[in-house]
């Protein structure tokens, strides 16, 4: 691989002085990938592509957007009505946020099922968790920018959460707002941060890939690559597979952007922010609903900890706990395919996430409250109790001796989906 000589003299001239083409060739063409990756492995590259789409559309929107409480809502309408194809750029950006989360959540569930967080990929996984956190901050600040009713009240509710921190909470909130309520300084800094953070994500994605390419991709069998017979070069095999996957994603993504652009949105955000009028139901965007449910599940104080503070801790904890996952799941077997008991709890965990989402979208009253508490308990129980115990008590199935062997014996093996 390293022996490759570039034909074009210009390319060779550059490459000898700074081997950027060799680097790209090594990582985008020759990168040895397990030959048995299934379609769940498409979502990483899809997330990268959606990130680029978001940055490009976002830059064009920023050229026409005005970050001021008196003009923000109007400037968005101007983009929708008077800027050439402004409506298209905005709809793609708006729906792109939702599709970014859909793709990334699938990517994360894939990692959870196939044990992609286990040694030697712990750091790769942790960088991914940080990316998720920055992504959420980006989405949250971005949702405030159109300055609709839900923008304003969502920002008010979420920033007010920090007031639950003992002693300094109220001061922190004033510091975050840059004033005594969500107002023009808040909008301005949110715009600045919303423009900054995608580039931080971009840099983190490079670290994520660096860690990935150092320890190589996991695969549906969760066993190590034993030699060249187990791998195929990234290009053309996975470039074409990823392109096909991109096509499928675009059908849905563009389908929603063109034909149901408001599907993921809230009607309230088509009304300009009014600090004097609270909407009947303040709900975050759908991708935050499970975490919103966890936040609201705490309706009781424990000792000196207020319910509000507990909710805030649990909400942030629900994501931060993922950082410790490599050490909570002690089972040496990576892939859920060979873990009969884990499999059941994993799918319950997925179902539970959807339940949390539905709970988060409904008012915190009646049977929704105990349901939110049960789902929150399962969410944390999965990481803190079930996974550690399974590592001790579960009897995993026998692992195939190598990827290529499992691929060749397709049809008789316990791994029916292993190969294409």
């Amino acid at each position: 691989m390293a022996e490759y000589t570039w034909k074009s003299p210009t390319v060779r001239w550059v490459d000898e002085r700074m081997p950027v083409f060799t680097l790209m060739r090594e990582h985008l063409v020759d990168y040895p990938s397990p030959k048995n990756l299934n379609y769940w492995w498409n979502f990483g590259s899809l997330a990268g592509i959606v990130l680029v789409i978001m940055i490009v559309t976002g830059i064009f929107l920023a050229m026409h957007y005005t970050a001021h409480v008196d003009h923000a809502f109007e400037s968005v309408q101007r983009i929708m009505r008077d800027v050439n194809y402004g409506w298209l750029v905005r709809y793609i950006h708006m729906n792109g946020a939702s599709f970014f989360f859909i793709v990334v959540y699938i990517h994360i569930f894939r990692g959870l099922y196939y044990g992609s967080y286990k040694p030697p990929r712990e750091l790769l996984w942790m960088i991914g968790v940080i990316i998720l956190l920055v992504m959420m901050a980006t989405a949250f600040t971005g949702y405030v920018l159109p300055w609709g009713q839900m923008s304003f009240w969502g920002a008010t509710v979420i920033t007010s959460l920090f007031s639950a921190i003992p002693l300094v909470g109220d001061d922190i909130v004033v510091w975050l707002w840059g004033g005594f309520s969500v107002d023009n300084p808040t909008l301005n800094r949110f715009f600045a941060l919303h423009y900054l953070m995608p580039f931080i994500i971009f840099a983190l994605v490079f670290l994520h890939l660096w860690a990935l390419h150092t320890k190589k991709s996991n695969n549906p069998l969760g066993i190590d690559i034993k030699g060249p017979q187990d791998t195929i070069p990234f290009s053309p095999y996975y470039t074409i597979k990823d392109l096909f996957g991109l096509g499928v994603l675009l059908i849905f993504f563009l389908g929603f952007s063109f034909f149901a652009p408001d599907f993921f949105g809230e009607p309230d955000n088509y009304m300009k922010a009014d600090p004097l009028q609270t909407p009947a139901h303040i709900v975050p965007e759908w991708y935050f609903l499970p975490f919103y449910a966890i936040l609201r599940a705490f309706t009781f104080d424990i000792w000196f900890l207020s319910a509000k503070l507990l909710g805030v801790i649990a909400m942030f904890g629900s994501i931060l706990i993922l950082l410790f996952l490599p050490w909570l799941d002690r089972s040496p077997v990576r892939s859920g395919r060979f873990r009969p008991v884990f499999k059941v709890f994993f799918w319950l965990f997925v179902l539970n996430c959807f339940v949390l989402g539905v709970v988060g979208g409904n008012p915190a009253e009646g049977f929704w409250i105990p349901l939110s508490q049960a789902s929150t308990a399962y969410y944390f129980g999965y990481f803190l109790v079930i996974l550690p115990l399974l590592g001790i008590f579960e009897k995993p199935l026998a692992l195939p001796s190598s990827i290529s062997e499992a691929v060749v014996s397709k049809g008789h093996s316990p791994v029916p989906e292993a190969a294409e």
Partner: protein
Amino acid sequence: MLTKFTTLAATALAVVTVTTTAFAAEAPRPPAQEWGFSGLFGTFDRGAQQRGFQVFQQACQSCHALEFIHFRNLTGIGLSPEEVEAIAEGYQVEDGPDDLGDMFMRAARPADRIPPPFPNEQAARAANNGAYPPELSLMTRARFFGHDYVYALLTGYRDEPPEDVELMPGMYFNEWFPGQQIAMAPPLFEGAITYEDGSPETVEQYARDLVTFLAWTAEPELEERNRLGVKVVLFVIVLTGLLFALKKKIWSDVH
């Protein structure tokens, strides 16, 4: 391979259905109407749009602003530039300051916004018994099931409230308004607006035309969006098919 996709698609569909129904449960859903502008190939009925604009002019605009519509936009409901100019001239807008530093009134031009009925919220409330008539150009998107909701609201007045409802002074009973008491007097009456094209002059027809007009003010890009969308999505489907064939071919030597 195919079964995997079917499973994926079925899961996605199930998730969408479950979540949509879970969230739709909040408010009573207004009865669904048939709108020519919904669906992949939807277009606005030009006649209905223009009649709807007439209804807006005669029944709504004395209280409600249409903030995001300029007269020039009205070519989008099928009016010629000359007709738009003539309509604009019927409105007075404030301009200035002139060379002496004074503001002055002049006839509107196509480049002007449709002027709001009140200079500010306080003036609007003062003239409307304390209520603030909302801006209408985004109304159909600012409510759940907006088109059906506005139609239901406009046709949902009842002369006599049900016996268990105590109306507050100056309020009207409307089945579809949240809380069922609305400060807006019934705006539409049978025969009150004269149509020149012979369309029925009923409250239902007025409401239907007005909703068509407001659907356009909320999404003036809708027709272009649908036209372009069909082409783009068809293109991507064909491209994806080709990419799939190529993927099959490239992968045929693996295993």
